């Protein structure tokens, strides 16, 4: 006779395989792999009654089909819109009874479903995890909700004309990565959003959100064996017949394959090598025109493809260079444009240092219309100076110390630790990279720093993107940085670049 226990044993998932763990210098965590390929990282922390759960996939908006920009992001926004047995409101109420939240975050290359709950009520965690699992694996993606979400999304996109900072960030990405899927706005345009259908959502979800693409990182107050068993039971039987998606990278040393076991390009000794700049004349000054002649501060960005990836041996030198230029309040850009000249509330350089060859780095700041060209001249001058002159010893040491001595902040809270380990997983980097971070930064000297940044800015053209009234065109032309292309912001939001 088949007893329930025997039946359960027969039907249970195979046990998880224990993988490596971070070295003792990093917060404790254990890595497993379930039989279906899902990697699980558990980061126990009993100090506070909190659970932070993140299920991330190595696929994002870059995989949106042409004309369907915003698809991945829309799927993300709708995973909590209903599961079998619970419509959107019932799901929301169930979550609210636990005081829990579930949300999504999508960028060009990753898709993350994250949730948090307090474990003050010991019964909350399993209820919450069940809801989380249902949202991740069984979301119904209802058509009626899609109709509404499209309306809300379109309104939100149009309202970006009120958000010049966001508009500038989107635009610099779109123009620097022109022609590449990664450059498209993550949440699409008003045109592409209108075109989304429920069938699109379901097809994308079934193709993209599969165990082979995924990693699950959980941090907080839990009993590890019990949780692992629960996950193995609930997530271990998550299977799919979809083939995993593999994309090849042209950048040696960069594994952008979404699956493992022999499907990555293999070049562990990669040096800085870049895709050649596109040939032919192209505008390198973009004025995203917003219809606001009384605008008091004009956002501007100066950026390019960030060609340095984490597997590159010069990553530390490059990272330190960006820190010197614009990574801190006391870095050069802010020091000059804000502190010395009083032209802005803040000026920074934000690099995207990751595993992908499609990152963008740009100066981010603003200035009054009257002071705009002066602000740009100063900022661009500093950008080039880093590549030209050696950073003085004291400055280099101070900036190095900000990264080295500030390293413990990365692991302050359980959510911080989860975030760090998630980053390592998605970037396909070994824990030893994270453990060796400060040593790598500490070893960088001024010559290496200059060479790294020099190579980076020589490899790709830079773009200037300004968000402001069309009346700025002549002033921008006077900078002699290239022809000025004026693009109405409303057109950009409707159609993209």
């Amino acid at each position, binding site marked *: 006779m088949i007893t329930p226990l025997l039946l359960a044993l027969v039907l249970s998932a195979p*046990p998880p395989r224990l993988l490596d763990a971070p070295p003792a210098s990093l917060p404790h965590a254990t890595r497993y792999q379930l039989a279906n390929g899902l990697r699980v990282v558990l980061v126990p922390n009993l100090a506070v009654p909190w659970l932070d759960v993140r299920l991330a996939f190595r696929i994002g908006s870059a995989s949106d089909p042409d004309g369907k920009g915003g698809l991945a992001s829309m799927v993300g926004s709708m995973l909590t819109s209903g599961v079998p047995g619970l419509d959107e409101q019932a799901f929301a109420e169930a979550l609210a009874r636990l005081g829990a939240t579930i949300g999504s975050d999508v960028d060009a290359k990753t898709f993350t479903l994250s949730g948090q709950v307090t474990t003050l*009520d010991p019964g909350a965690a399993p209820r919450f995890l069940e809801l989380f699992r249902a949202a991740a694996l069984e979301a119904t993606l209802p058509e009626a909700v899609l109709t509404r979400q499209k*309306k809300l999304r379109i309104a939100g996109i149009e309202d970006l004309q*009120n958000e010049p900072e966001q508009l500038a960030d989107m635009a610099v990405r779109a123009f620097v990565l022109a022609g590449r899927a990664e450059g498209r706005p993550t949440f699409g345009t008003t045109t592409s959003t209108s075109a989304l259908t429920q069938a699109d959502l379901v097809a994308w979800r079934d193709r993209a959100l599969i165990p082979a693409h995924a990693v699950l990182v959980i941090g907080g107050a839990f009993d590890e064996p019990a949780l692992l068993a629960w996950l193995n039971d609930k997530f271990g039987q998550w299977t799919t017949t979809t083939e995993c998606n593999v994309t090849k990278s042209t950048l040696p040393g960069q594994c952008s394959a979404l699956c493992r076991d022999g499907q990555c390009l293999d070049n562990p000794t990669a040096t800085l090598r870049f895709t050649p700049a596109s040939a032919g004349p192209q505008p390198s000054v973009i004025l995203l025109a917003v219809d606001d002649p009384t605008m008091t501060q004009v956002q501007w960005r100066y950026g390019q493809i960030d060609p340095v990836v984490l597997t590159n041996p010069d990553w530390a030198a490059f990272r330190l260079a960006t820190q010197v230029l614009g990574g801190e309040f006391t870095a050069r850009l802010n020091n000059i444009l804000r502190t010395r000249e009083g032209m802005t509330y803040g000026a920074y350089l934000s690099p995207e240092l990751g595993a992908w060859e499609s990152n963008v780095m740009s100066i981010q700041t603003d200035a009054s219309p009257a002071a705009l060209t002066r602000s740009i001249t100063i900022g661009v001058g500093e950008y080039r100076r880093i590549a030209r002159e050696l950073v003085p010893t004291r400055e280099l040491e101070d900036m190095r110390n900000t990264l080295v001595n500030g390293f413990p902040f990365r692991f302050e809270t359980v959510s911080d630790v989860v975030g760090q380990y998630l980053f390592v997983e998605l970037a396909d980097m070994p824990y030893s990279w994270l453990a060796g971070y400060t040593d790598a930064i500490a070893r960088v000297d001024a010559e290496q720093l200059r060479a790294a940044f020099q190579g980076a800015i020589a490899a790709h053209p830079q773009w200037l993107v300004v968000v402001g009234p069309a009346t700025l065109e002549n002033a921008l032309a006077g900078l002699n940085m290239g022809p000025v292309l004026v693009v109405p912001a409303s057109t950009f939001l409707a159609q993209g670049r």
Partner: protein
Amino acid sequence: MRVLVLGLLLLSACPSAPEARPDSVAGPRDVVASEVEAPLTPPAGTIRPTLRHEQLDNGLDVYLVPDHTSPLVVVQVWVKTGSRNEHEATGGADHGTTGLSHFFEHLMFQGTQRFPSYDDALTPLGAQNNAFTYQDATVFWAYTPKQHLRLVLDIEADRFEHMNVDFLHVEPERAVVENERREHTDASPTSLAEELATKNAFDHSAYRWGPIGWMRDLDAITLDEVQAYHALHYHPAGAFLVIAGDLDADQTMAWVHELWGPIAGAAHAAAPPRPPVAPETWQGPRSDHVIEDSPTTSVVWEYRAPPPGGTTTRAYAALEIIDYVLTAGKSGRLQKRLVYSDTPEVSELGASLGTLADPYLYEWNADLLPDATVAGVEAALDEELSAVAAHGVSPDELVRAVAGLRTTAVQAILSNSERAEGIGFALVSAGDPFAQFARLEAYPSITQAELQAVASTYLVPATRSRVAVVAPKRLQTLSHLWTDRRPPAPLGPLMNRASDWFVSQQVHQRSLAEADREERAIALLAQRADVAKAADPSAKAAIDKYLSDSEAGVTKRRARLATTRKALALKTRELEAQRVAFVAQLAAVAQTSAARVGGPMRQAIELLLAAPSEGLGVPMPPRELTGISDDELALHVVSAWVCEARGLFATAQRARAFVLRAAAQLGDKASPLARGAYALAFDTSVEGLALVDTPSFVVRPTRSGR
């Protein structure tokens, strides 16, 4: 922590499972709410942090919050002064001191003799730092690896007492603060709406302006005022420290005594008394708008709210519950109704409850979808608030609210800085470092009667101040609605051109006003420089260099202003030439087709094209509403726009009120033009008029702050 038994034995039968701990049993069954047995998580202890408190002889209070989870410590210096300690210009004064607390916060980063650069001293340690100012306090924080705690305490004590305050430290930071205002307030229509709604919500209180202050005051605050502010407010009895993290309490307290103890409190025996905040008694609702370019109609509503401390602790807790019931997640009543419904009216809906020491505000804000109306959304808000007042909330809603508030309380202790901030805010607003935990314990006992009482007292139109963002393009849209008729009106094209011209003229007026502001600001800067040079002749060369070389200095600003003035002068001439041409066209059309030229449209065009220096022939609304035509309605809307732009607020209000009454009377018989007239031009809809049939419009105060 004790490990709990977990149910059926799935995993225990798997031979290659990770090695089980001896007292654990793995593998739950399917977990459903009704079957939850033992949890996957260990039982939690209290979330209330451990606190040690001492007061130094000089009056400084010190709170230590040890936590050894990570090797970091945060030092927060709470100075009990904020925007409520400022004043607006009164009498014949040229300026007030609004924004000074925040401005001073910036100045605290200018360094001292011992530590000439605050950031250079801290940043290489890997420490993070910043500060914030709000109505009741100014808070400085430095977050450091624990081995640098003593140094951080030393730096903070030194700058508290010896901050560099002179011309060359103050002026560059003034430019930064003004940029902050431009970027975060002036560039954001919603922020401007919020600022005005708050201002209109307070007749008496210093809470009526925000910490950023009014630009006119920021341009003018003098060095003497800055120094006086420091002397008055920055003394030990007017401040407290919250230090949280991986610290040795005895050692830390010893350092505090050593480094902060000598700071003299001699100037004042006690902290200056907190300026009283008289309760507001006006009866509303109050309704106003800001005219800003925006693709979205955003609306801000401010309701009066009780403070979290003293006799209103339970009322505040009840309001927190109501807030959750209405706004949390997708299941909040108003979220469900206005956003997450099949017919959404709002793309974004938010609410926030102030945590100030005296009665402040409960704010709602919404971004309307294109086919929604302000009146419609407001009616929904009123209905849901009335429902709470009449019936309270359901048991399930109460469970959800308490769960959500408990999560918020746990989130507030996840990091040292959040833990310290929670204690600081509780001390300032309620005088109790654990006030927020006391409320956490109180939530489950809040009764329906208390919820209803709070909703009935505070969440009613009588206490509400509303501001809508109205795009200038509405006037142009109204014009096209008026002229897009068959047969076409002879003056139609000219009406459209006149409304376009008027909007351009308004933009131009703002540019002129900004140039005037800049001219005054430059003159004041030059005056302050002269005073500073006279006070310290040895600084003359450095001051002159700043004035000539800095982008924020007099020389470059004058040059830019001169360029701007030239462009503005050209624009003035261009607009005047257009106006003259349009006036001539109007006369020509009127002569050629006098019989067909409608009076109201012609009057509207004349109003729009009236030269800025001329008086306005404003048509007075008739007493009788019967027989009012669409054209007359549209004329009075245009009249309201033009009068408001000219500062004739009472006349504008009369015109708006007339249109409102007329459109209400017309009701279903109103034409699209009538329906559109008021809705497009201002901030409500004809459909919603029945609910606000006797609006109480604010007579707009002088716009000294803007």
